[in-house]
């Protein structure tokens, strides 16, 4: 069920009304029922896998909890408990990620292997459930936290089920943490009109980004970035730029809808984007883009990796064998590199995603290793870190790196990434930007105008937010009529420029098809 469908809006509306009507004790059960309805609408077969993962991780939580509660008076007993816990945790994670691997990456691995081996391997044709990786990451985080004794396990399978399956987050995340989300899901609450209002506003804003901007930009992207792209570099760059716009508006718009829907139920979900356009470095970018994935990687991959015994050894070896800073930060850099590689692979089963991981990993690791050198250069050039010009330069530089990285995630395959990059640099053919080529890519002049205006609104608002202005509370201080005008304008824009953007066939055209 897509966010941009009437059934979804209907489900949310019905869910919200019932949520505040049913007895408070039953509120969380209602949320669970609505989440189930959401899943079943997408096909019962797919949901089976999710039930399996949920059951497995819930059980692992219980078993870990049992171990946590076991009295361990001496060191031997403690070690024994730790060993059992480790086994439970490892078994559970292997099963979960094994399933994810089988469903998402097996066929890719088989096809990537030399054909002598790969062709003999079986292929699976799973119906991958919606949001499987979010689901597994969230559940795995819970198991690791219980393993670490961060909080007690959830004994009630239904309550645990609600935590992993809360429907708004299943499409595009965010990856929530049990200790933040579960208490909110399970607590009883009365109707708060302000929550309802903010929820509606967030949803509308999300739809605006998704339907008005992202869906429009996608038309041009799909027309330009193809296997045998016939256009010059300027048009290709334009296509990738539109892809950046599309990706940001679609993803962050989706998260806005998710958070808006949750807010209507009085639930505050984690932010996933913090205006990545203003990032001044690639590391900063990853702190602002898909925040919950980065945080998950930090807590469950980076730290465990850096603090592991193996890495301790590597670190000691590096300090002994590599001179200067390089030796000191070698292990950290390696962990960082691995994290970004995993992030790359997380995006999908394809070589270009691995390359995308490498691109980010190499750049960020290099910047870590070269940090001292950069500082010396800056001092030599008398650059003021705090100056606006420097910030603008850094932002633009970061933007360029992200922009190049997007060639990896959008090109149809790894080889075309390099073809497209080559075209962009060596055969720009800038005249194509003005000779009408742009208008032959599925977007009319008015569409470009709409994208430009909508982006102007979006950037203006983000500028204010970056300076610490809270838009919605600020809007509340305006006269009622202005507030009504603002929301009606947004609503009309979503309807007329978004919902009714595509799919209209002029009657003369309907006939000429036949």
């Amino acid at each position: 069920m897509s966010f941009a469908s009437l059934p979804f809006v209907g489900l949310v509306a019905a869910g919200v009304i019932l949520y505040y009507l049913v007895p408070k004790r039953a509120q969380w059960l209602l949320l669970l029922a609505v989440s189930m309805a959401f899943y079943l609408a997408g096909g019962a077969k797919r949901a089976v896998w999710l039930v399996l993962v949920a059951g497995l991780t819930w059980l692992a939580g219980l078993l870990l909890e049992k171990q946590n509660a076991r009295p361990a008076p001496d060191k031997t007993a403690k070690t024994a408990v730790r060993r059992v816990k480790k086994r439970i945790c490892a078994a559970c994670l292997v099963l979960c990620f094994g399933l994810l691997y089988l469903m998402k990456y097996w066929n890719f691995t088989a096809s990537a292997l030399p054909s002598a081996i790969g062709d003999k391997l079986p292929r699976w044709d799973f119906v991958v459930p919606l949001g499987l990786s979010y689901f597994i990451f969230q559940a795995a985080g819970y198991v690791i936290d219980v393993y670490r004794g961060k909080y007690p396990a959830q004994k009630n399978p239904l309550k645990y089920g609600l935590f992993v399956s809360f429907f708004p987050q299943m499409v595009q995340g965010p990856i929530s943490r049990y200790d933040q989300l579960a208490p909110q899901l399970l607590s009883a609450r009365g109707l708060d009109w302000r929550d309802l209002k903010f929820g509606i506003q967030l949803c509308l804003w999300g739809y605006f980004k998704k339907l008005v901007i992202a869906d429009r930009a996608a038309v041009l992207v799909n027309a330009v970035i193809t296997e045998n792209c016939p256009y010059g570099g300027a048009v290709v760059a334009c296509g990738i730029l539109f892809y950046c716009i599309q990706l940001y508006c679609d993803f962050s718009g989706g998260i806005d809808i998710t958070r808006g829907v949750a807010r209507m139920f009085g639930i505050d979900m984690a932010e996933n984007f913090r205006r990545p356009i203003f990032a001044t470095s690639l590391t900063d970018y990853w702190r602002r883009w898909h925040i919950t994935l980065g945080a998950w990687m930090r807590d469950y991959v980076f730290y465990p990796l850096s603090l592991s015994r193996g890495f301790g050894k590597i670190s000691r070896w590096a300090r002994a064998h590599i001179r200067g800073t390089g030796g000191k930060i070698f292990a950290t850099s390696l962990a960082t590199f691995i994290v970004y590689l995993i992030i790359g692979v997380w995006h999908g089963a394809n070589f270009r995603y691995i390359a995308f991981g490498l691109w980010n990993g190499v750049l960020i690791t290099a910047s870590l290793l070269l940090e001292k050198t950069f500082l010396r250069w800056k001092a030599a050039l008398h650059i003021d870190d705090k100056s606006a010009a420097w910030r603008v330069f850094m932002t633009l530089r970061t933007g360029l790196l992200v922009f190049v990285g997007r060639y990896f995630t959008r090109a149809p395959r790894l080889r075309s990434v390099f073809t497209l990059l080559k075209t962009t640099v060596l055969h720009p053919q800038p005249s194509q930007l003005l000779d009408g080529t742009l208008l032959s890519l599925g977007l009319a002049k008015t569409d470009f105008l709409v994208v430009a205006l909508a982006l102007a609104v979006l950037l203006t608002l983000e500028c204010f937010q970056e300076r610490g202005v809270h838009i919605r509370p600020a809007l509340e201080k305006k006269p009622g009529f202005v507030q009504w005008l603002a929301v009606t304008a947004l609503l009309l824009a979503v309807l007329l420029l978004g919902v009714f953007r595509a799919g209209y066939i002029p009657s003369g055209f309907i006939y000429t098809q036949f």
Partner: protein
Amino acid sequence: MSSKKWVLVFLATVFVLAALLAGLNAAVDPFGAFGDRLLSWFSYDETNNPRVAKLSYLEQHHDEYDSYILGCSSTSSFPVDAFNEAFDARFYNLIMYGADMRDCEKITRYLIEHYEVKNLILNVYLDNGLEYDEESDRLTKSLHYKEDPDTSALSFYTRYLFADPRYALAKLNALRTDTILPQTFDVFDERTGCYDKRVRDAEPIGSAERYLESYPVFADYPHQTLSLPYTEPCMQSVAAIRAMCEEAGVNLTVVAGPVYAAYLKNYQTEDIAAFYRSLAQVTPFWDFSSSSVSCEMRYFYDGTHFRNNVGEMMCARMTGRTDLWLPDDFGTYVTADTPEEYFTDVLSPAALSPDEISAQVPILMYHHLSEDVTNSEMVSPEQFEAQIRALSEAGYTGVSFDELQAYVLRGAPLPEKPVVITFDDGYESNYTLAYPILQKYGMKATIFAIGVSFGKDHYKDTDYAITPHFGAAEAAEMAASGLISIQSHTYDMHQWPPYESGSAVRENILPLPGESEEAYVQALTEDFTRSRALLEDAAGQPVDVLAYPAGQYSTLAQVTLQSLGVHVTLSTNPGVNTVVRGLPQTLYAMLRFGITEDVTPEALLDMIR
């Protein structure tokens, strides 16, 4: 504003907007989903979605029909009127573009269960094996929920109530630009259900070269590799339709309409043969799919749709009528016993040769004969006689328009070298000078008389003297000879501005500036009816040919005249006509050579060669 108030105001706004949209869609009803009670413009609605709008139309009008024709868009040219006569029934053509056999099955069930159905004609087209149960666009391709058990009323009405408002706005906009003739937004004739092909049926047709120029698709036919993956489900649906008809006592006729030969080439021969063979296993049917007709592009509007004239021919073949020309290989009644090889043999038809189906016919245009030649429209009797003599000696035979019609419609033979001699305006000299010469050489001719100047030597009721025109007595005498036919040059749509007093002068048959279409059609109808009454009364012959004054004409004029029973019209554009059997359009706006005094007999023969 408090948060509570904000939420309530927001919800109210949403409600009002939704109500406005629903109200607009329900009132304007661009798909006819709600019965189009306000505008009742079904030809528009049917263009947007024939499945939905035609059912809405039938819900209101099914008592006017007792028989139905079903199928995809090539079914449009199944002629309702001809079938009405042949079956003694009242047919409605339920052609729906892109219809697949699943649609047909569902509709048949609904028709039989809810309406009176005596006859059902089902067209099975190759595309029915190409697509099955196709509903990619919910607004334009889906069925009405009443005929579709797979759609709920709720989802149906929600879909059309909250449809893109541009559909409703486009309909309102079209309402302002609507014309009597169909445009791309109202392509159906709501009374018969057929495509409204009046414009294409009025277009003059001539040589193959000229047709290719107008419709280059035939020169460069788009080739693609297609297959028939849905032959089996398609035939299951046909079988289901047959079973339903048998049970309900409905007379079912299955027809495989003509397919353009180049389109057939998109498929593997075995696939096509298997398609029609499996149809024969399910039901006997009339097979017109591949014949010499399929090879002649002029029998097709485009690469998919055969002409209404061909539909008439189909009906004639099916009902054993002999009053229409038909190629011998056109139409076979196929049954389960039809030999195996038929299905492959039929796919290599012999094309009709130009000699078999067409003839070159030059038409000469004269006006006034006079010893004293003072303008380019006059010819001296001596020169006229020289020209006629040359024609006669060169082996030309003067033919009448009746003979041309007999050739085109019924396939009657024409002389080896036909020529048509015509005179415009109806001058007395035609009788005094030309008629004796024509008699001498036994040449037939047609005179187009203007009604107001018939038998006059003064301009209407004025004192202005004009060249004298012959009257009833002369007309009767000439007509009785069997050589001369008196036909129409309009009653009063060839006015002479200097002698007219009013400001609106009709110099030709085109509308006056600012005249509404309705007023114009009425004026033309009255004018021609008067002209015909006058001339038929005088000459005692039917009047069904009209020469356009000054050669000017429009599609609307042509369509109006056809509806009044005019079968031949003439322009003044020069050229030799190609008349084609089965295509009455080759008799529309026919070409004529204007003959002047300085055309020598040799030059004349050269001109028309």
